[in-house]
């Protein structure tokens, strides 16, 4: 049986790749995808701990995280479409209307 540490380290690697993508890419769609990857890495951690402690709470938590991720993607992409109607760009640097 694969130790839980391996899953945790894989999850840390995926989370880091997602965070680097959020920090270094400027396309809003790719930033969305990286946020989804980060959420999924946390899901992997929760499921690994759920097996480790033989407890179903982690899996229930993952279920809710999936619902929140779906809601986040729907609303976020709607905001992105609404913004693209105005400025014809998906560059995240152009989303500065609300800057002070």
């Amino acid at each position, binding site marked *: 049986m694969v130790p839980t540490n391996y*899953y945790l380290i894989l999850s840390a690697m995926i989370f*880091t790749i997602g965070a680097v993508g959020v920090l270094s890419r400027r396309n809003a769609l790719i930033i969305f995808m990286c946020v989804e990857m980060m959420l999924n890495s946390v899901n992997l951690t929760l499921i690994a701990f759920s097996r480790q402690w033989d407890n*179903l709470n982690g899996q*229930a938590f993952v279920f809710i995280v*999936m619902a*929140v991720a779906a*809601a986040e993607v729907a609303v976020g992409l709607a905001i992105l479409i609404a913004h693209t109607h105005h400025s014809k760009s998906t560059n995240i640097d152009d989303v500065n209307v609300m800057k002070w």
Partner: protein
Amino acid sequence: MDFATIFFILVGALSVGAAVGVVMSRVAVHSALFLLTHFATLAVLYITLDAQFLGAAQIIIYAGGIVILILFVIMLIGSQEIETRAAYRTWVPYAGLALGLVLLSSMTYAIMQTPIKPVAVPANEGGVPIVLGMFLYTQNILLVELASVLLLVALLGALLLARKPKDEKSPIS
């Protein structure tokens, strides 16, 4: 090294490679397809962790719903070349990479320092739909109701945000 560990390393390497592909590819559609691969490998990992229902839900929700939604949005608003304008700030990717290395090394150090005893008990039936369903719909029924309300509100919010404003009395724009 037994078969399970070798399988884990293969699937994990594929998962990390797909994640790197999401970040590195220049075309947004390629990123979305790499993301699909990444979600599929994660579903396999969930099944190896005895979470069979969540593996199926991962395929259905993420691969079947979210990636398709992202692909539709890419086709709607186009994936124009936008990275060139920010290219003069050449230090930004390196700063992100350095911060990522710091994050990864600190997390790996923390994981290695934490004593986690190996799983002694054989896998329970914790992930099959009947057990997880009984757990969700008896003890955690409030959680399910909150998730349904959240999804309904998100549906309405997405509809309100993404439509074209057709008159000036519209609450947005």
